[in-house]
């Protein structure tokens, strides 16, 4: 899957393609600016858009911000154009436009929100709280994917690990009446899926993408079968797990906007923060991480200096499974409680996209996952306030934006060199 892209780097010649490669960021920004002006200003309704910044339980209350829609979209669209011009200048100077793009995206988002919320109130904390919690499984999955690919095994089975984790955690938590036991069970289930992946990929040299795709089908079939046969006839005993409650962290949870967003979540979300930091630190600052990356980039070299390539791969893929399994537990213990057939609904594939979008880096992948979580939650918030935009077109937006972002900003990304390639000692 991590197809060879290294060869596609555009040579810095003066062809039209090189021109496009150099100027794609300003061109993309210009395109979005035009869309912004045409839609958000051109089709703006008269009225005011309100942003609510505080929740009912906050100690420090921020006032609601009410702005006239048309004025807001005009000002924000001018900012978009300004950012585009700045991008042109920076590209001409040969400087990075990364932060400019981030700012542009934020302004574009507010432009969109102001336009869509005419006569309505957007609950900003609600939007962000939901975004973080919806991103949680994606982030766990993406971390699992990053570790797998960094050590040289493509993990397409994230969806399967999610489902296995969700199913097992619901079952075990129902039986033991302890969500913590469910959490451990979810990790074990993820590891078991990883064992199969690792065994087939490392011992039997089966293509890792094949194993991943097939494992997803296998786990879907198994969990759906067992759900129909066992769980749904015995809902009370087997499929009514206790859920994790939201835990407020003292002081931190009182910071306006950030507090409710980050520090009034369930334990699984706090575990996610720890996991992101731990994976980043371990991958880039420890001996373990160096070995993992060496095995994923150049297994021969790693072998030469005495690292057991296949053993390293096996145990790290298992670790990745445990992390992804935690993400699966979120679907049940952190969210709805009971297990449902195919309840992970393609999130594993989104997590995989986040891995690639985040260029195989835990922090970037986390941000990519947050983007997807935010987009998903934005849709439900806008549906809840009864926006006039056809919901399908809005639902499409995050995916279209991702395609643009991947095509325009990320471009030719380079996976770990040995990712997906089995290592045969010679």
């Amino acid at each position: 899957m991590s197809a060879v892209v290294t060869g596609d780097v555009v040579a810095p010649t003066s062809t039209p393609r090189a021109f496009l490669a150099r100027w794609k960021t300003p061109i993309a920004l210009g395109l979005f600016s035009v869309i912004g002006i045409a839609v958000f200003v051109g089709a703006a309704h008269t009225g005011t858009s309100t942003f609510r910044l505080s929740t009912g339980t906050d100690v420090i209350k921020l006032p609601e911000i009410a702005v006239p829609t048309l004025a807001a979209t005009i000002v924000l669209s001018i900012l978009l154009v300004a950012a585009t011009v700045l991008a042109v200048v920076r590209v001409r100077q040969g400087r990075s436009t990364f932060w400019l793009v981030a700012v542009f995206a934020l302004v574009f988002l507010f432009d969109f929100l102001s336009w869509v919320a005419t006569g309505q109130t957007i609950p900003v904390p609600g939007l962000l709280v939901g975004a973080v919690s919806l991103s949680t499984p994606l982030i766990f999955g993406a971390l699992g994917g990053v570790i797998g690919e960094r050590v040289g095994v493509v993990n397409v089975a994230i969806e399967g690990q999610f489902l296995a984790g969700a199913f097992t955690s619901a079952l075990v938590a129902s039986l033991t009446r302890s969500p913590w036991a469910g959490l451990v069970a979810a990790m074990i289930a993820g590891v078991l899926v990883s064992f199969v992946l690792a065994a087939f990929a490392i011992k039997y040299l089966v293509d890792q993408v094949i194993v991943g795709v097939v494992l997803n089908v296998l786990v879907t079939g198994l969990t759906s079968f067992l759900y129909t046969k066992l769980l749904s006839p015995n809902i009370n005993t087997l499929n009514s797990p206790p859920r994790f409650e939201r835990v407020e962290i003292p002081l931190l949870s009182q910071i306006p906007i950030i507090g409710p967003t980050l520090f009034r979540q369930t334990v699984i979300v706090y575990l996610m923060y720890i996991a992101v930091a731990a994976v980043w630190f371990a991958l880039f600052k420890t001996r373990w991480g160096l070995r993992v990356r060496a095995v994923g980039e150049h297994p021969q070299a790693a072998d030469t200096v005495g690292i057991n390539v296949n053993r390293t791969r096996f145990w790290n893929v298992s670790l990745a499974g445990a992390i992804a399994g935690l993400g699966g537990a979120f679907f049940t213990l952190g969210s709805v409680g009971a297990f449902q057939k195919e309840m992970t609904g393609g999130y594993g594939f989104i997590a995989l996209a986040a891995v690639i979008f985040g260029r195989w880096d835990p922090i970037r992948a986390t941000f990519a996952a947050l983007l997807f979580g935010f987009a998903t939650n934005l849709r439900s918030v806008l549906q809840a306030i009864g926006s006039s935009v056809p919901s399908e077109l809005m639902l499409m937006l995050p995916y279209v934006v991702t395609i643009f972002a991947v095509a325009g900003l990320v471009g030719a990304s380079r996976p770990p060199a040995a990712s997906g390639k089995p290592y045969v000692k010679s």
Partner: protein
Amino acid sequence: MTDPNHPTAADAPRAKGTPVVTDTTKVDSVGDVDGALEPGQVPTLAAREEPSRWRAAVGQIVGGSAGISVLAVVLALLVGAVLIAVTDAGVQSAAGYFFARPGDTLQAIGRAVGGAYAALFQGAIWNVRRDTFAGQIKPITDTLTFATPLIAAGLGVALAFRVGLFNIGAQGQLLVGAIFAGWVATHLQLPYGIHLIVAVIAGIVGGAVWGGIAGILRARTGAHEVIVTIMLNYVAVYLLTFLLKTPVLQAPGSTNPKSAAIEPTAELPQLFGVQFQLHLGFVLAIIATAVVWFVLNRSSLGFRFRAVGENPHAARVAGMNVKNLYLWAMLISGGLAGLAATSQVLGGSLTSGFSVGVDAGIGFDAITVALLGRSRPVGVFVAGVLFGAFKAGGYTMQAAQNVPVDVVLVVQSIIVLLIAAPPLVRAVFRLPIPVPRAPRAARPSKAEVSQ
């Protein structure tokens, strides 16, 4: 490496049919479902490290890929049987007094498993309970009807695999193909024959457009086709949902998100009369199989496709335009998914109007079909028919025996896993490794490598 009873990783390249994949982009490999090494196929890296002459010999020896495939199916059905037996209420109650009367438990297991698989067989191949011949063979025609879109979409995924692209987007391409074909079939008034041709072409074009987006982004910007096709799947779902609520596709005067019934002029005619569902789409699937086989194995385009799939760097050095080939591959791959859409929209049970569920999971099944078929056209055809049989029989099994159809997914995925790992199947059945042990041979000569 020294114990012949424990096939190690390094043994695998010698075994016929072992998918030794040294390049991530290469999904198919040494073996073929029907066991033939494609002419002109470049040996993989791993094969180069091991003597490649073994592979020719291995094909004829016991445990070749045909034998392994049969054993894999048997093993997978056994696993399915265990699942059915363990969750069966009759077996559970009989197992409660297993040590008193073990015969009861065995009988219950036999009843549960036998009943389920008998129903599967009756639903997929031959219904012994019908009196007329037509009634008896109806299941096999249902199987082929279910297989039709699977074959078409599976060919698309397989072709992309051969070029080193992982097209997860068959679902989206199928849906857009359905939009195009559905619009032509419901809005245009054309004479018999022409209408059908236009509708089928529209479906293929629709799929090709959607696949082409991923292809052109891959070729021009290097955007990873996996992300782009995943995203395009979602976009296509919402696009279809949206269009089904607008006059573009929604049935006039209806408020349901469902299309109008397609014009009779655009229907794929049923092949054996009205009592059988099997329609002309199956013939199109056969033609598509032949065309894809010809393109891949006998045309210069196919040669370049395979060269890029084997090693894009080498292909570029040899003067091939790798980026254009990526685009072409995605266009054809999407077009085949669009062909699958036409068999869904224009034939079978959805001719009275389709909704957003027109995909029916075919987009993802196509990936498994392509994998099981080892990305070879004929293999994909056989795999498509097998999966069609599971689909047709699975529902009968669920209805008749109260066995959830999901067990079919388990069986299917285990088959694919096992066929991909022949050493495992041999270990389970304690088969000998079909290659005599030999001291590590020298590397093959250049002539052997470029055979």
